[in-house]
């Protein structure tokens, strides 16, 4: 038994250290939108509270296992519930704390966060329509008349382990979505076949693309760069192979790119 326990402890210790020292992903990516920042804040708050609660109760239980072990206490107590007024107060206290935690500490910020999440129409500066397909994404700027599709470019050889995998294995596409930085973008999602879900972790937003219906969300990306994500609703056999890649660039670069796309769309032979 000792050996098994040691092994268990050893593995947990190793896990603990590895998450600290190695460059593995183990938390949210750096948030780049107001919603993602809010979500990360809620997540951190939650982790602190949940881990504290968990380990506090665990410590209490472990203390009980030790202090109230049969070898130390031959006779068990006989209480079956709170008996005095004071005991009732002590008993109800944790539940009062729980309600405050639920509806105060989490509930109040959550109310505002949901309001913010759903505020898609106010001040939107650009509309992007995202259409899910089996198995690629289509992007459209309805106001600008630009529409194109975005497909996985990872070669089949890499997936079948016949050649070494590239840096952005499964997270690379032929034509990424290009967005201007610091502009409130209103996204409209829909699908041509089954339900897909558009997700970029760094944006903190995810919304299903439901065939026949329009869903919406928004994002203001505050930092230029390339952001990657994946489809997150099972949509058939290539579900794992329809990534989302977003290039966030300055307004000038965006304008140039958009003009290029327009020319390409009207060019002969297209």
């Amino acid at each position: 038994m000792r050996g098994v326990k040691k092994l268990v402890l050893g593995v947990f210790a190793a896990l603990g250290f590895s998450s600290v020292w190695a460059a593995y992903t183990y938390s949210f990516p750096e948030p780049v939108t107001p919603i993602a920042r809010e979500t990360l804040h809620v997540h951190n708050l939650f982790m602190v509270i949940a881990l504290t609660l968990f380990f506090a109760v665990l410590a209490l239980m472990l203390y009980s296992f030790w202090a109230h072990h049969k070898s130390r206490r031959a006779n068990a107590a006989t209480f079956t519930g709170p008996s005095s007024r004071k005991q009732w107060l002590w008993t109800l206290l944790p539940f009062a704390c729980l309600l405050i935690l639920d509806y105060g500490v989490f509930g109040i910020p959550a109310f505002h966060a949901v309001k913010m999440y759903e505020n898609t129409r106010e001040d939107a500066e650009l509309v992007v329509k995202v259409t899910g397909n089996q198995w690629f994404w289509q992007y459209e700027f309805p106001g600008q008349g630009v529409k194109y599709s975005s497909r996985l470019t990872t070669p089949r050889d890499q997936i079948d382990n016949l050649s070494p995998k590239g840096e952005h294995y499964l997270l690379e596409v032929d034509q990424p979505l290009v967005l201007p930085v610091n502009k409130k973008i209103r996204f409209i999602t829909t699908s041509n076949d089954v339900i897909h879900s558009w997700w970029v972790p760094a944006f903190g937003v995810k919304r299903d693309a439901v065939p026949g219906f329009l869903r919406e969300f928004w994002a203001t990306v505050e930092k230029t760069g390339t952001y990657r994500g994946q489809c997150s609703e099972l949509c058939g056999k290539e579900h794992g192979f329809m990534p989302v890649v977003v290039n966030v660039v300055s307004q000038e670069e965006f304008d140039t790119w958009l003009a290029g796309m327009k020319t390409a769309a009207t060019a002969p032979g297209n």
Partner: protein
Amino acid sequence: MAHDLAHELPQVGAHDAHHHPSGVMRWIQTTNHKDIGIMYLIFAITMLLTGGAMILGVRAELFQPGLQFMQPEFFNQLITLHGLIMVFGFAMPAATGLANYMLPMVLGAPDMALPRLNNWGFWILPPAAVMLVLPFFLGIMGVGPGAVDTGWTMYAPLSVQSGWGMDFAIFAVHMLGVSSILGSINVIVTILNMRAPGMTLMKMPLFAHGFLMTAILLITIMPVFAGGVTMVLMDRHFGTHFFTAAGGGDPVLWQHIFWFMGHPEVYVLLLPICGVVPHVLTAFSRKTVYGYKAQVYAMWGIAVLAVMVWAHHMFTSGMSTGAQMYFMYSTMLISLPLAVLFFCWIATLWRGSLSFETPMLFAVGFIILFGWGGLTGLVLADAAADPQYHNGYFLVAHFHYALYPTTVMGAMAGIYYWLPKWTGHMLDERLGKIHFWIVMLGFNLTFIPQFLVGLGGMPRRIPDYPLMFAEWNMLSSIGAFILGSSHLLFIYIVVKCVRGGKKAEARSWEGAQGLEWTVPSPAPYHTFEVQPTVE
């Protein structure tokens, strides 16, 4: 074991049980709650191994990035069958098996109220299971498109588009639903009518309360689900458009129907274990149960809230702001009755005289791991933060922390606890403890990394993944194989206990309480020929 029991049959009474057939027919025709309970448990364990083998295939594929062993089509079948088999094939029958075997014994009844219905309820299960997995094996042999591959949630319109494995799954779900409704009717009738004289509802053991709430929930939700899958069937073959927008339907309607069943289903799996655990805790803390009434009311509270919160599974599907608020705040309310249960469980241990035999280890392990599963549910209830966790591995880890400790560890706590009563032998404590520690190691090693890759942004149900998730997935796969092997050890321990071991007393555990411990071990074929009276 059961054959030995049969020889101790009382040879009196106008029952058909005294000239029961032998051999296979005995098991096919039996109306005895113990026989049927055993068959349910054997069926459940078979399904646990089947569903487990499938997910080990998945974990083997996810051991490294790239496709090594299977194509995505096959992968999708594995994850789907794993979910369906574990929920409908393992967890529910395991609970029903426990109910069948133990309900009459804790209530002081000779048998379940409706023995023939009981037999029918069980024998629907094996054909249903065959129906569910048949397309899978046919697919391996190159016949047909393979099994259902839509994920166990069967979201339309993917489920409308899927191959005929889906039709088999729909039919299997119908049969499984009929089976659990029959089982539930039997549980409710037994509890309401067959209690020993003097055992009022509020003196009834918590075990019975857990199953009463489970049965009521099942009767509420399974017909809705049966209707839902029938609508999918109609969409697939008869040109209706319930779930396709092209004909005026709504794919999200399916999600509402599914989760109206799917969320209470979580409590269907939890409540029986909430009934089992207090029995184990009181026995090994040598103390009476703390807050009996509070626990009963908490279970009722959970059952009522269960059918009111379903759409928190659908925050990313798109809902009005008001609906999001409602489902968020009502979901948070569930933490209250659950906290009452946790409080009572820990207070039951407090200042007891504790010892840690195998059943107790599993009960305590359940409390700790399920505690973390419950806590992580809190942040998923936040409608604005949820999208970041939803359909990622964080969610997968969360619900496995909620479901594995309950359905597997909780059921094992119950099985180990009552095994001496069933077999007449004490179990091998040393092996039991080794089993527990292997489970703890394997389970945490499997699912802690999944929380972390989930936060990193790995979606669920993908057969291949970007390189940044590689290390955690490797650890998780190693854990899964350790966890899987623990179930083989479990079977070995049970078989060993059936075959022999230290003779068990009537009261097999020092602190065991309840009517079932007043009869000899193993218990007679019809436990109580004369009803016992409760104070």
